[in-house]
């Protein structure tokens, strides 16, 4: 089915030891994604969030990833170098169990897009503004197997055929098309 293809994977390496906790990443992310660009800013709309607990020396910049519709079951704690981290601190999901990665007004989920821009930005804006190098932009080339993807309509029709049989589906489609034309 598939064939090998080269793909550029964009990623951001996070060095938490270098984070000084200033939240410039949150600020500039929200400014870049404002419409028009930079016309407003609001860290609450940012697609990067600094999970920050200064007295316990917890500084975790985390990027918005996929939407998780349901809360996960039981969240673990990690102890790293004597510091306790909540699993949420590493999770990229916009999910029902926390406020982050949702538009404050509509509660719609947010997702990092690596600052897609025309002309393209050299690096995502959060990386550009983190001059302490806690955030490092990296590109790597990977060979990925490209699957031949079924179109949405095809997937839908296949399941209808599974359920009702080919003939029934064909009859229905011709009847519908005749009545629409008439």
């Amino acid at each position, binding site marked *: 089915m598939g064939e090998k293809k080269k793909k550029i994977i964009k990623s951001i390496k996070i060095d938490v030891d270098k984070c000084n906790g200033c939240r410039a990443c949150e600020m500039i992310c929200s400014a870049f994604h404002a419409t028009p660009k930079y016309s407003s800013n609001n860290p609450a709309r940012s697609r990067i969030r600094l999970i920050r607990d*200064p007295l316990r020396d917890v500084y975790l910049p985390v990027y918005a990833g996929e939407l998780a519709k349901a809360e996960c079951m039981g969240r673990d704690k990690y102890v790293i170098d004597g510091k306790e981290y909540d699993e949420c601190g590493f999770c990229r999901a916009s999910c029902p169990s926390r406020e982050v990665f949702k538009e404050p007004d509509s509660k719609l989920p947010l997702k990092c897009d690596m600052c897609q821009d025309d002309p393209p930005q050299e690096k995502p804006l959060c990386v550009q503004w983190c001059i302490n190098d806690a955030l490092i932009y990296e590109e790597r080339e990977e060979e990925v197997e490209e699957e031949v993807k079924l179109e949405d309509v095809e997937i839908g029709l296949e399941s209808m055929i599974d359920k009702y049989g080919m003939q029934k589906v064909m009859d229905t489609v011709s009847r519908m098309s005749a009545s629409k034309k008439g």
Partner: protein
Amino acid sequence: MRYAETGFNLEIDLTRGSIERVATDPRLTELHLGGLGTSAKILWDRVPPETEPFSPDNLLIFSTGLLCGTPATGANRTIVTTYSPQTLLMGYSMMGGFWAPELKHAGYDKVIFRGKSPNLVYLWINNDKVEIRDASHLKGKGAVETAELVRQELKEPNAQVAAIGLAGENRVYMASIEQGRSSASRLGLGAVMGDKGLKAIAVRGTKDVNIARPAEFIKLCNEVLQYIKIRGEKPVPGVMPILAGLGSPQEMKLVDEEWHTQNFMWGNARERKRDYWNKEIEEKWKATQESVRTRLISCYNCPMKCGATISVPGISTYMMKCFSKLTYTMAAFSDLDFGFRIAQRATEYGMDGFSTPQVMAFAVELKEAGILTDEDFAGCPSDNEGKFYWLLDRIVRREGIGDVLANGTYWAAQQIGKGAEAYAHNNIKKHEQLPLKLGMLNPVYYLMYCTGEKINITQIEGQFPQAPFPTMEEREDFVKDWIQVPDEKFKQYFLDWEFRGERSNPYYPTVDMSVDIVDWQEMMHYIDDALGMCAGLSSFPLKPPYHIHNYPVLISSATGIDMDEAGLTQVYRRNRTLLRAVNVRRGLRRADEKPPEDHWKKRFPELEEKLLDAYYKFKGWNNQGIPTKESLHELDLDYVAEDLLLRGILTDNEDTPSKETSLETEKK
């Protein structure tokens, strides 16, 4: 729509428990920008000069600056303003951290408190929802501890909390307002907060801050950030390490304290230890510092790392910045380990790390001189460090001699008498100063010490090197990329400045040059204080990223207000003069404008008079330091002139001397 600012203030009446959201006049932003400028205007308009600092009629104003919450790097300062119990003048102190941007995002430019709550409360601002909540369970809690407890109670880890400790609750004149890694420490603002029954203000905001001309503004912000990066790689040669870079003096990062320990005074600003620093001490202090310093940290939207998280084993974690690292150490003739330990307790109490150590060292001196007695020190441990902990605990609780000392060295000396006044030797306008005693009078510093309304040299100085450079080659090298000068003449002032001979202190810089230099230094501070910009990126260091040439466009593109260099200079003059008028109305006169007598060994009374005369004249003030009717008119401050005339502080006839008064005579 309003840009950069929100256009709304919160008005909180603590007596009645009322909360109002009030729209502000955009014309005032054009006249004063914001921050300190508009807060001074509110104090002038609404608090009569006879109001006592601890009166319910006194206002306590927490203000953002005009650029706070915008992408401008380092615009994060909260400016707190009220009448100070310490100086009785207008008190303003600023803190970095995260509070001001959060308030902007909640939808407010300022929070203005009046009245007094009958019981201890805290304010919770959560966007449009604002409530006064009971704080009786927080009574006596530490300032850092309180912030944590409030966040837990509200289940809002992202709330930013400004809080007082026990010192503020007990109206100790050195009480600070603490907020994460920052604090508004000077002039007793925490005492006014405590007097109002206000333990803390928690704020959470998730609204947008808007920019008028985004493309233009972000381009400038990017240039500033790039400059900070390049400047970080290029420290200024020929000056001591802590003055070579940007930000506050980098004392959390640097271990080398040769300069402070050998040039600043120990004890009650008394003893200079010229040969203190050596390899052994450096290694010991390095070990101490590195064992307690968990991380170097920043304020909101700033790459500088001026603060640090400090975790001393066995006591709770706190945050520190700048010179407070050494103030306790040096006041007690102790070492750095003691400094970090006692500062933790003082931070939880919410105390000014600047005045507090001096007050304690003053008490120790008075005891040694026999002016304070064994009875005053009954129960005090005999070891040196123990004595300082004991004094700190007494002062904060206002117990015994602590109740007297809690009013600072000036007022304590008045109350103790028996010659104690001579020991309160390091004050300007009743407030403790940096423990610095020098040889030759520096005319620029003389003027700044005398006339600064902040009454704290670090909030007045900057931009211009503190001393000449030895060779012409070094000077030429320094001025080559000195783009920050408002006028090319400043380069020549610096090039011609020598260590010895005709063109050296005290007669060079000349009187007129000194006035020019001070005006530039003040200008940058006043602009910063209105914008909420950290002095560490603008008015304080040499060759900063923000200056008089890029500020006008930055302000204009952020706010949409038309602004050029002349316009911005006019705003600065207006704000500077208004602050002076607020203090003049409270009794400030020429007689109050003097540095500590022993600040310099070599003094020049005639020259000093000339300097002050020239400074006043340049500012458009009369020889008492009172703004004239004409200069007030030029600054759109006719209402100030009218008031000063009505009170007889100004007279219509310039030749008639105005009513003689001074704080010294009036308040005794």
